[in-house]
Structure formats: C-alpha cells, structure tokens
C-alpha cells in the first residue's frame, strides 16, 4: 500500500495517512492492527454523494476530505453509512456550498469541519456557519473549527484561532484528551509562524489596521492580506467568534 503524507499541509510527520485512491483507502482500513495506526485521511475530488462508502469495518479513524460537497440530495440518504463508518467529513471553503453542506451534515449528527483555503474567504459565510455551530438550539454534531475553540477558549489568553478543521482534528487525535484538546494550541509549526515576535511587532510599528483590530488577540494578523471589505471582513467574523466563545448562555 502506498502511504503518502507528502501533500499534507501539516508536513511529513502529520500524524495521519493521506490517500486519494478509494481502493487504497479500503486496503488501509482492512489492516488488522487498525487501532494502533494513525487516522486515515481520504482526500477526493469526487462529490460527497458519489464517494463509494464500501469501506471495510475498521477500528481505524477515517476522515473524508471531500473538495466538493455536491448536491445534498445525493448524500443526505447516506447518513447511516457516514455514522456507521464514524466518518469525520472535511470540506473546503473554496466551494461556497460547503457552508450549507456543513450545516446539513451537522444537523444529521455527522461531525464535520471546514478548512479555510479560499484565496479570498467569504467572511460573512463563515460568520453564518459560526452562528449555527455556536447558537443553534437544535441538536447537531460539532462543527470545526468552532466546536473545539468554544471549549478551550480562555478570554484572558491571546492565541490565534485555527481556521483549519484538519489541523484541529489532527491535534485532537494526538492528544489523549481527545475532543477536548485545545484547538487554539495547534501544530507547533503553525503557532510558531503565527506568534513570531518580529512578524507581530511589524503590525504595531507600521500602525497596520490589524494592530487596532478588536479581534487581534485571536488572529494576530494572519489574514492581513485577505481582510475583506465593508461588513464582510475577518475582523467582524473573528469578533463574533470571540463573543460566541465568551457567551455565558452557550453550554461549552
């Protein structure tokens, strides 16, 4: 079986195996020592509804990264299969429909998450999804990157929120504490990059708009080049996210 992590955004020691061929995914899942192997990330361009879910039963964690959610009518009836395989479904914000798909999956009880990959994020769409993930009173499965941040956020501590659901679940899978892992304390590489003192100081020395932003503490200028315009900005979104984390009415 070919196992590759070369394409992993988190580097070669990512802690999961990346496959893009369904046959190879099946092969990986049928290995008997499944419980001690790292999670399998099956990445596919096939729309979610068309991904064959004929995987063998396995103790191994399976994450499905579907670049295109496709039409809900094609996958909504697969709820049982998603749950039976204990699938974690990852979507990308490159496809605008991913936001709606994440809501639907979550409402079906399927844990899911979004990865921020779009060159210019739709911050309003992110904020809408946050609103659902944080405030919706109806039962629903956790939506990352919000769920873990809501649990681990501490108002007095300034740390960048992670916008990549994959990075969050990788972190969680590595920690014995599982889903309670600290989502604001992500991969070392990313945190070092975000908190680099010289990079951060530049914002203050240049009086960059980010240094005056109310959400600086949970972003630290990460999205300075894709801040957005008007109400559709990272600042509005991150501020709403902070407020949701601090909202006493939300059960963490």
């Amino acid at each position, binding site marked *: 079986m070919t196992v590759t992590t070369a394409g992993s955004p988190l580097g070669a020691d990512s802690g999961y195996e990346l496959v893009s061929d369904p046959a190879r995914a099946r092969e990986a899942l049928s290995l008997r020592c499944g419980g001690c192997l790292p999670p399998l990330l099956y990445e596919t361009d096939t729309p979610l509804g068309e991904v064959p879910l004929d995987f063998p039963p396995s103790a191994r964690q399976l994450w499905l990264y579907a670049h295109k959610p496709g039409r809900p009518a094609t996958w909504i009836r697969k709820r049982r299969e998603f749950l039976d395989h204990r699938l974690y479904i990852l979507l990308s914000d490159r496809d605008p429909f991913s936001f709606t798909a994440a809501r639907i999956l979550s409402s079906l009880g399927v844990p899911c998450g979004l990865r921020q990959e779009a060159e210019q994020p739709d911050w309003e769409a992110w904020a809408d999804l946050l609103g659902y993930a944080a405030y919706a009173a109806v039962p629903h499965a956790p939506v990352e990157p919000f769920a873990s941040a809501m649990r681990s956020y501490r108002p007095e501590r300034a740390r960048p929120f992670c916008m990549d659901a994959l990075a969050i679940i990788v972190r969680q899978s590595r920690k014995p504490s599982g889903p309670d892992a600290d989502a604001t304390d992500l991969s070392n590489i990313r945190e070092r990059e975000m908190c680099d003192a010289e990079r951060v100081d530049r914002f203050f020395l240049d009086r960059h708009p980010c240094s005056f932003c109310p959400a600086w503490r949970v972003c630290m200028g990460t999205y300075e080049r894709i801040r957005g315009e008007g109400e559709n900005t990272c600042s509005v979104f991150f501020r709403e996210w902070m407020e949701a984390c*601090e909202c006493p009415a939300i059960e963490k």
Partner: protein
Amino acid sequence: MSCHREIEHAGLVRTLIVKTTRLCTSNCAYCDVVSRKKPGPSSMSDDVAKNLLQRVAEYLRAKPDDAITWIWHGGEPLLLPKAFYRKVLESIREQYADVSDRLHFDMQSNLMVMDREWAELLQDMGLTSIGSSYDPEPGIRGPGESRRSDIYNKAFLRGMRIAEDAGLSVGIIYVVTKKSLANPLELFRHLTNLRPDGALKFNPVLLPENRFPELRITPEEYADFLGAVFAEWWPNRQRYGKIDPFQTLVQCIIEKDTNGLVCVDSGICAHTHASISLDGRIAQCGRSDDWDVMSYGNIRECSLLDAFESPLRLEMKERYGSLRAGECSDCRFWDICHGGCPLDSLQPRGHFKAPSPWSAAQRRFIEEYFEPITGICFQSVTS
C-alpha cells in the same frame, strides 16, 4: 474629625522614587526631566547611592515593621552602567542583609536599551515586573527634536519581548493627550493588543502652561476618554485584564477596598512618599523634585526618618482635614479621591489647600460613565 487621613504607622510601606539619571534615550513631549535642564551632575554617583543605602538601612532598622519600595527612576535608569546597580546589590548583600527582606526594588524604564543581561540583573535585584510607557502616536515619544517614535517603538517592543521572555512582566503607562481623543477605542485596542504581561494604565498629560498646548487636555476630556474606553472594558474585562484606573475603581467602589489607590488619590502621600535626586536631595515625590518644591534636605545630612517626619510635610498632612471640612465637604467621592494630587492644586492656586482640578475628571467619569455602565452606585467606604 482628624486633621489628616488616619494611617497605620506600624507596617507602613514607604515609597522612594530614586532618580538615577536625567539622561534619556527619549525626548518625550511631556517629560519634566527632559524639559527642565538643571545644572549639576547628569547621573547619580556611586557615593550618593552608597549614602542612600545607608539611610535606607538606618530607617529600616529604626522601624522594624516598615518596608521600603525603592523605585529606580530617571531619565532612563538603564543608561547607568550595570556596575552601578551591581555595587548596590553587593552592598545590600554584604552590609544590609538584615533589612534586605523589607527593601523591594521596582523600576520605571522605557526599555529601549533592555537586553538579556539587564533583565538578569533586574531579576537579581528581585524585580518581577517593570513599568514602562508607550505611545503609538508619532511625535510624542522618541529620541531627537522630532521625537522619532519609529525608533522608540521599535526599541520598546524589542525591550518588552526581552523582559517578558526573561520573566519580567511589563506594565505600560499610556499618557492621554489631545491626540488620544480622536479615537479612544482604536487606541485602547492597539495598546491591549500589545498584550503586556502587566497592567495598562491611563494617566492624563500634565504640561506646564507654556508647553505643547496642542497636547493639553481638560479634566472633562480625560473623563470622556476614560468613559469611552470603560464602555468597552467593563463588559469584556476578563478579556482585557487589568486596566487602570478602572480596576482600582472597581476594587474601591465594588469591593470597598481603597488600599490600591495610587499616590495622587490615596490621601496619604505625605506619609508614604519621598524622592531622591541625583545629588541626594530628598523631595516629596518625583514631580516635586522636578519642580524644585517641597524639598526636605539632602541624604548627606538628613535621615529618611527626619525627611518623613519633616514639619514641612505638615501643610500637606493638614490639607486633607481642611479639604474635608471645606471644599470637599459635600463630595461623595472623598474616600477615593482625597482632593487629588497636592501638586496639581499648587500649580494654579499657589497652595495645597484646594482640590486638584483633576478631581473633576474622577467625579465626571464615575457619575457619567462608571455608575450608568455598571449600574452600581458609589457609596462611601467609610460611611
């Protein structure tokens, strides 16, 4: 009614502001040390420091329940050679070990020349925090005639990181000027985004009549500035941490604890504070030393005990009684103001027996902002 505020004499903490140099790496617009170019030495000599240590030890031995907080001040105290401070430390270890547990050091520095060696030395002196100042607005803090804030801020940020990496928390004083009034919230966010480990404190700019009228603010403007910031801080205070004067007022008004009042509001500065200048002169405080008023002698011939008991302090001590019976008699904020800084009343009126004009800022802030925003009505602590 007593003639001045009752204080516990046993276990008193005296504050010594020790001005080690008038040299500075910055030329801040509102700095009295920079603007009042005095004759004489530019830095404290080893001999003066030695005399001062003797006086401090003498005081602590005579007052076994008291303690002294020794604040290294300037100019910029880090411009002195490190050897100067090492000698002080050495003397304490060799000659004054018996009082060293009641002598605590603190420092006010702009951090521009902070390096790891300095940070280690300060920790050897027992410092766990250091006070500093910062202003993102160009042209207010910085070296040279044009006050190069780009140079200041770069060095300050570097110094802050070094200090914090070494385990020294950094508190920031922000001086509110006319330029701060345009957008208080943006400014507040910028300052809190710096994430200093220590507290952030706002002070109003205090300028002599003839200097920088474009920076001057009124007590009302200061109160309104604080009010705009308070509206953001109060509901999010867990997020923003300790911001003064808000935290202190919360402690006073809600927790009924006035022990944290700063010198200008404490009503006991006549008992607690003294300043030592480069040549050993003892004054009431740092400002009085800058202004050449309320001088109690020189450590060469005057003990600290005598300086703290000087009859010249009587006028200040009596100030509180006369204010309480007079101009401040109807004020419900007396417990947290005590008429404000005596020096502020000296400047416009020529005597101490008037409340500080800045007391109006305190009153306005509490009545217009603190009480409406928190829904908590201030009640006298002593009533």
